């Protein structure tokens, strides 16, 4: 009986040994901060020529200025992405007005942390659809939005 018990115990030890590779294997550790940036959509929809022109300007801004300058907008989506969404959801005139209104909100720094819900990226959630004519909506602050 003792022999059997010892055999079973030893079997379990040898069946699952810790390999040297697991113990001393090289780990690919990185100290870089995970990027909070969401992928930019550079595609242009040519069906609507006005929107295509607006998107071309935004693409140029992203490529030449924004990507080099860094991801600094406190809002999600960023002001440029807000403009793209606003133009797509309404039209170029309303979208432009919505963009300038957003720009004013962006410049208004006092107490804004308590006025907007938070996006999971840590930024203030302020999408274009909340300001579209006829579908303006209120989202209470201090909640975390978990969608992209």
């Amino acid at each position: 009986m003792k022999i059997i018990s010892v055999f079973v115990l030893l079997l379990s030890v040898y069946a699952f040994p810790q390999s040297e590779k697991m113990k001393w294997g090289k780990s690919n550790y990185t100290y870089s901060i995970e990027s909070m940036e969401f992928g930019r959509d550079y595609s242009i929809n040519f069906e609507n020529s006005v929107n295509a022109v607006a998107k071309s300007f935004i693409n140029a801004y992203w490529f030449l200025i924004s990507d080099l300058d860094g991801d600094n907008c406190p809002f999600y989506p960023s002001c440029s992405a807000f403009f793209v969404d606003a133009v797509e959801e309404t039209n170029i005139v309303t979208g432009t007005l919505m963009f300038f209104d957003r720009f004013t909100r962006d410049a208004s720094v006092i107490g804004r942390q308590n006025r907007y819900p938070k996006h999971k990226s840590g930024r203030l959630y302020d999408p274009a659809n909340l300001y579209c004519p006829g579908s303006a909506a209120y989202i209470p602050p201090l909640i975390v939005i978990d969608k992209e």
Partner: protein
Amino acid sequence: MIRIFLFVIISINFSYSQNFHSPENKKLFADYLFCSEDYLRAVIEYEEYIKHYKNDTVLFKIAFGYSKIENFKQAAELFKKICMQSDFYYRARSEYLKSLLLAENFESFTSIDTKEASITELKLINIAYLFSELKLPDKNTFLLTFSDSEKNEMLKFYEQKKEPPYKSSFLAGLLSSVVPGAGKIYTNQISEGLTSLVLNGLFAFLSYNNFKNDHTTRGWIFAGVGAFFYAGNIYGSAVSANIYNQRVDYEYKENVKLFLETHNYFIERYEFCK
């Protein structure tokens, strides 16, 4: 070794002799889960029990459990099934109305016969007017069912429902067209209103100053950007009034819900787990 072997065999035999899955044991387990506020699993166990025995208390607990896990539609259906002969009949009626309220099924309130309704039911029917688009009754009729301690609060809710403190989007836009940012201040967005005033003032000054000094091109650029800020602010102020009104509705509903939860929807608290 033999002793251990025997102990194991006897333990297994003993455990097999106990039927842990008998309806009675399921009910005991469900009671334990119910009192531990694990309503989801309690409901599952009670539903197994009720397949074998009819029991109004268990049916009530299942409905109550569904209400607790926010399946209000199912809860309302089950509360409705509790018959008149049951001790839980009147409680179930009140809970049924509470479930309808929480499920936002306000249309069902219109078909309820108020002649046989208890005070609690009448209160809940009146509360439905506060949440729905149904036409509000007369103020005195509305307040009649509520106790003196509840009347003040209910009067506030009634008046806010009748005349919500909405802001006019037209007025907000108009104010912003006269003084940039004034519309935003009108809709309580004071910080944004002041920012808009500063931005518009800044661009107006830059434009004026450049024109004055014969820098026409720069003058037009600043005037153009300023005009966009000006128009954007008018649009933003009008939308801001809409958002403000939605906020008023949201906060109103939250306040009524908080009041109801504080008063347990005017329903007596149950002592199932002493």
